[in-house]
């Protein structure tokens, strides 16, 4: 069994807060690193999603509720620091949908972080696309659907490969 659970998620409230705060900080650093990477694809919402690495890894080691709180905190804070208010709305939609999908995928126990991350990447982009359609009140953004599925698969795989490596070393 996974003995590290005893170390990484102590039952005490202080331990809970410490782990959560630490992981939010790590996720924010990933968000910051991502703003430094030029990723000039003229498609709305196209990005690497490095910060999702924290959500992904967290799902395999922590309680889902805690991971969810860490993700929401990260999205709101990084939105205020590196984005705009609309960035927060898009990220929240993508984040919540991908979190739900990744949680279900993880619970099936037939996928490693790689497969879970691919699903998360694709559904994150789907969530953003739905919000984009609602914002402009038009189906026009769906022309990006093929690109967003492909990009979600690629970025999900990259993050998933890192997540797999992290998972096997923790």
């Amino acid at each position, binding site marked *: 069994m996974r003995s590290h659970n005893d170390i990484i998620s102590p039952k005490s409230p202080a331990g809970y807060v410490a782990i959560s705060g630490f992981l939010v900080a790590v996720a924010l650093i990933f968000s910051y690193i991502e703003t430094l990477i030029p990723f000039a694809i*003229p498609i*709305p919402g196209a990005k690497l999603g490095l910060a999702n690495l924290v959500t992904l890894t967290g799902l395999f080691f922590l309680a889902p509720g805690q991971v969810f709180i860490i993700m929401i905190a990260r999205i709101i804070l990084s939105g205020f620091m590196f984005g705009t208010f*609309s960035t927060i709305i898009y990220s929240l939609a993508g984040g919540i949908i991908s979190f739900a999908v990744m949680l279900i995928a993880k619970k099936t126990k037939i996928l*490693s972080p790689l497969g879970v991350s691919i699903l998360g990447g694709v559904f994150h982009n789907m969530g953003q696309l739905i919000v984009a359609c609602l*914002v*402009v*009140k*038009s189906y026009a953004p769906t022309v990006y659907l093929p690109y967003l599925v492909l990009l979600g*698969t690629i970025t999900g795989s990259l993050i998933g490969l890192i997540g797999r490596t992290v998972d*096997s070393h923790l």
Partner: protein
Amino acid sequence: MSSKKEKNNSTLKNDLFILIVFLMISGCLFIVFGRSSKEDGAYALVTVNGEEYARLDLDKDTDIIVSTDKGTNTIHVSGGEVYVDSADCPDQICVNHVAVRYDGESIVCLPHKLVIEICSEKEGDVDAVSQ
């Protein structure tokens, strides 16, 4: 550690299955979405916040400035193509977008809730012909 390795190997197969399935889905989507868009459009429909703002005839070279409370986009039409010349939106995705000319193509500026869609039929044509 060895049991974990075995588990990783069996899940890896499922992971690769997921990867291949989504690559195939995106491939199919590219084929479906790419097929119907090789006809030159007739006009560009500009909508802001879901409401029609302007119709630009693709045969006439024009520049229009769309200014709303969200900001300004300068749309340029020339040689049957439409592109956004400049905009004061934060992401500049609409400005970096390639020019569109085929039916069904579009440029979206999310911060300004602006959509430019290429349409093929002039709705006014039926009336013009019957007159």
